[in-house]
């Protein structure tokens, strides 16, 4: 029942002094113990062990393994990091050995996704991590700064709400009836919202879904249906979509970047266009591989470089439709399979547009300030409540924004 063991290189590609390979999932220790000829249970808990990884009697590398127990690790699962020498060939071999012994290559962002599912990361952290996912470039990006600024913002929103609510409930018995103090709280709040927006903008890496497949398999039509755009040039002649086209779609409250590519099979396309498409694969979460009736499998280069691949049997409305098990039957004409496809796309982690949310929060706070000046405290409080819900949601804290009476009453001095 527990998820598979996954592994991936966590450090930048290329030669370097040291590299880190992450392994996560129940059974990781046992796996490592077996390939490093360590005694059973040597890796239990939080440990650091030196050992040699060998393959069929041949020593591959001398490594350090650091292990974290379930509940304490980054993913929340039983997890280990292999610190090895940064030689590309030996790194590749270690990965191969791991796979041979039952692990599987991690999908892009799968570590973070597991961490999210296990409650070890909230959405903000996941989004911050999204910046690293394509190559997991450098770990220093994950400084927690963005999370920190969101935490502060949430805190300040709560304070402002308390101030407004306190003013609504108790002002009659309160001595100072002006709204000076509230206005200054809101002015500060506006600054915190700006900080967060700035932080969010700089970390934003909108996830990409790339539509690929042989020429004229219906990619542009699908792209248009999904984005609700009629911009792309669509015809029944092969090779009419020359430029990759980009659009944004909102699914389950997330903004996802959708890219339409030109065909990759060489028919009706020159080589450079083909290469350009292949290069787009970096940083792409999902490739939707479309081919008419599911006839053409994706080529090796795509399989190697893409994250998750969704295979689509396109134009399922046409006569020659076949039921291929691994393929999702989709028709842009009848709408068959579209909902399911959207569901798959919405699974892309990190595709929640943090910038968008930050912008909404900022706008709410501005509005709320406006309502205070127009003496509509009821609306000011309502809007702050909504901003609080947004902030809580991205922090992974749920929508419960019950105002603790305890806090609203703090400092309030009231009669009957």
């Amino acid at each position, binding site marked *: 029942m527990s998820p598979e063991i996954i592994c991936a290189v966590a450090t930048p590609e290329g030669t370097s002094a040291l590299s880190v390979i992450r392994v996560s999932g129940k059974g990781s220790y046992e796996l490592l113990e077996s390939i490093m000829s360590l005694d059973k249970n040597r890796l239990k808990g939080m440990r650091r062990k030196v050992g040699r990884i060998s393959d069929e009697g041949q020593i591959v590398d001398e490594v350090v393994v650091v292990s974290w127990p379930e*509940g304490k690790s980054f993913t929340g699962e039983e997890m280990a990091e292999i610190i090895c020498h940064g030689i590309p060939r030996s790194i590749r071999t270690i990965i191969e050995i791991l796979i041979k012994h039952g692990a599987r290559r991690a999908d892009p962002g799968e570590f973070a996704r597991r961490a999210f599912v296990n409650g070890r990361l909230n959405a903000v952290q996941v989004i911050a991590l999204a910046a690293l996912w394509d190559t997991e470039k450098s770990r220093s990006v994950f400084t927690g700064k963005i999370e920190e600024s969101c935490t502060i913002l949430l805190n300040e929103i709560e304070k402002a709400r308390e101030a407004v609510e306190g003013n*609504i409930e108790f002002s009659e018995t309160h001595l100072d009836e002006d709204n000076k103090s509230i206005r200054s709280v809101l002015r500060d709040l506006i600054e915190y919202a700006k900080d967060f927006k700035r932080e969010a903008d700089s970390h934003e890496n909108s996830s990409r879904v790339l539509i690929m497949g042989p020429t004229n398999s219906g990619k542009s039509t699908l792209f248009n249906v999904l984005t609700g755009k009629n911009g792309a040039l669509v015809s029944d002649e092969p090779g009419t979509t020359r430029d990759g086209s980009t659009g944004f779609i909102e699914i389950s409250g997330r903004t996802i970047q959708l890219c339409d590519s030109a065909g990759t099979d060489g028919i009706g396309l020159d080589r450079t266009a083909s290469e350009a498409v292949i290069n787009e694969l970096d940083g792409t979460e999902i490739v939707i591989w479309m081919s008419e009736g599911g006839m053409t499998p994706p080529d090796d280069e795509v399989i190697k470089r893409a994250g998750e691949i969704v295979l689509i049997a396109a134009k399922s409305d046409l006569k020659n439709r076949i039921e291929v098990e691994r393929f999702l039957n989709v028709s842009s004409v009848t709408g068959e399979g579209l909902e399911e496809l959207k569901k798959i796309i919405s699974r892309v982690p990190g595709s929640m547009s943090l910038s968008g949310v930050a912008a909404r929060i900022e706008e709410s706070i501005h509005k709320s300030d406006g*309502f205070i000046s127009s003496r509509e405290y009821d609306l000011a409080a309502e809007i702050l*409540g909504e901003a609080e819900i947004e902030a809580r949601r991205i922090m992974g804290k749920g*929508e419960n924004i019950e105002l603790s009476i305890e806090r609203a009453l703090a400092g309030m001095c009231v009669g009957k």
Partner: protein
Amino acid sequence: MKEEWDVIVVGGGHAGIEAALAARRMGCSVVLISAKIGRIGELSCNPAIGGIAKGTIVREIDALDGSMARSADSTTLHFRMLNRKKGPAVWGPRVQSDAKEYARTQQRHLRNSGVTIIEDEVTGLDGLTEKVSGVRCRKSSSIKGKTVVIAAGTFLKGRLFRGDEHWKGGRIGDISADSLEDDIVRRLFHVERFKTGTPSRILQNTVNTEQLEVQKSEKTSFTFSYDKSMNNGLEEVCYVTYTNRNTMEIAKDNLHLSPLMVGRIEGTGPRYCPSYEDKVVKFPERMRHKIYVEPMGYKSRYFYLNGLSSSLPREAQEKIVRSLDGFSEAEIADYGYAVEYSYFHYTEIDDTLRLRKTENVFAAGQICGTSGYEEAAGLGLIAGANAGRVAKCLEPLSLSRMESYIGVMIDDIVSKGADEPYRMFSSRAENRLHLRQDNADRRLHNTGELFGILSEDKSELLNGNLREAGRIKVLLEKEIVDGIRLSKWCRRPGTSVEEVVSAANSLAGIDEEVLKSVLLDEKYSGYIERNLRRYESRRDLEKISLKEISSYMEVEEICWEAREALEKSRPETLAGAERIPGIRPTDLQGLLIYLDRRRSTWNNARAGEI
């Protein structure tokens, strides 16, 4: 005397009165038993009704045809619309009432309605707890009833305190319902102790009112009741004075004599309604506290000192009062005191206000853990109506928290309880923009009809308002102003109702009150819709029971911290889990996955057996 009553009401406070009247309006035979007939409907503390959120409750009570609004209207001496500059959704109508007249008026409503009143002390329930047969009384023998509403207020083992004086009583000069409390405890109901207090009453002619700020009544045609005929036309002024350094010093010097401070009182008091001693301890840096000086009635001999509740010894109270501006010669007629009493723990009460252990006993008013007249009356009305339904072999009903403050209050006290006497605040209502004082009639019309507690006149009046509102809504959709449909035009930020009225021709001549109310509906509609949607999606969580999880520690789908937090509080539903601090959406998802898996394994195992 009747063989068996449909509804027996224990206690003639604000809760008991509304309970008796509501059941009576349903056509039930009702007997109300109270310790002192003359004190039925007494305002035990301040002579005021309404306030922020509380005033809205009073209007809700009127929409359900209760009597509090009418009695307040006909005894009003002073009116203020609180929060007038804070937005119409949080306006709070509040009146000073003639305390004596108010009680008399309520007694008259009871008598005219055909409720039988008996002066006696109820000493216990009769029969099995699961299904009681009536009540036992001190003087008369047992009284039989199909249902019982307990509305004993602050009287359940009531203990009064002032300095080192202490005696039995639910309030000064009254009995303490010790036997009834004994019986309740003997029947294994979980009760807890709360406390509250009241300030001293001052002889008016000993106060120099010239040294006080005058606070005049607002000139308005406002009435709590949607039936506007009750205004009495009498008026009194209120005054404002302030505490000073001297007042604080005196209180400080006497703190050691306070029964609260020395721990003689164990019950928890309301933080939002602290005694003056509390304030001195909690806000030591604050010298000036506002004290409202309110007349107890029309041409009354007494002032009430709102904000100066105290249970210090008499001499200290005297010194404190005399330290106030204008009060140097003041004579105290009645000294302040504190009361401690028992109330039902929230787990005992369900969302129809029925006690969970029984089929036919309901609780209402302060014994549910609330405080305040309006709160008590609102609870009483619903408890009485539901007792009436059970007497008629109908299922009792519950109210939605999205439609009324009474609904919010009941939901709050039966699902979360409170660690201090529960007072209504507008911020407790997530749908506050909808729960306004201006639209209580339309909000609760359905509920009133459903319970069958509206008199013919009331029903006609409310139906009329509803029709008129419907007509206005049609007009708003029809008329175009500045090229925009009026319904949209009036939603623009900063648009006042007056502007709308003057901009639209078709609205001329329409009853202004209903019109304003409908325009507010329009103005807030976007927010209200969002709130309802949010509520609905959260209510789905309410439907998912977690009872089958025997140990959260084994739920591998969620993180350790969540497991521990859940194991500690063991929520009944997913919504309950969501409310626990630290529980995240991913944990909720995890719980769902767990439940799903469990069910399928369980089903598979069962399939294997067969």
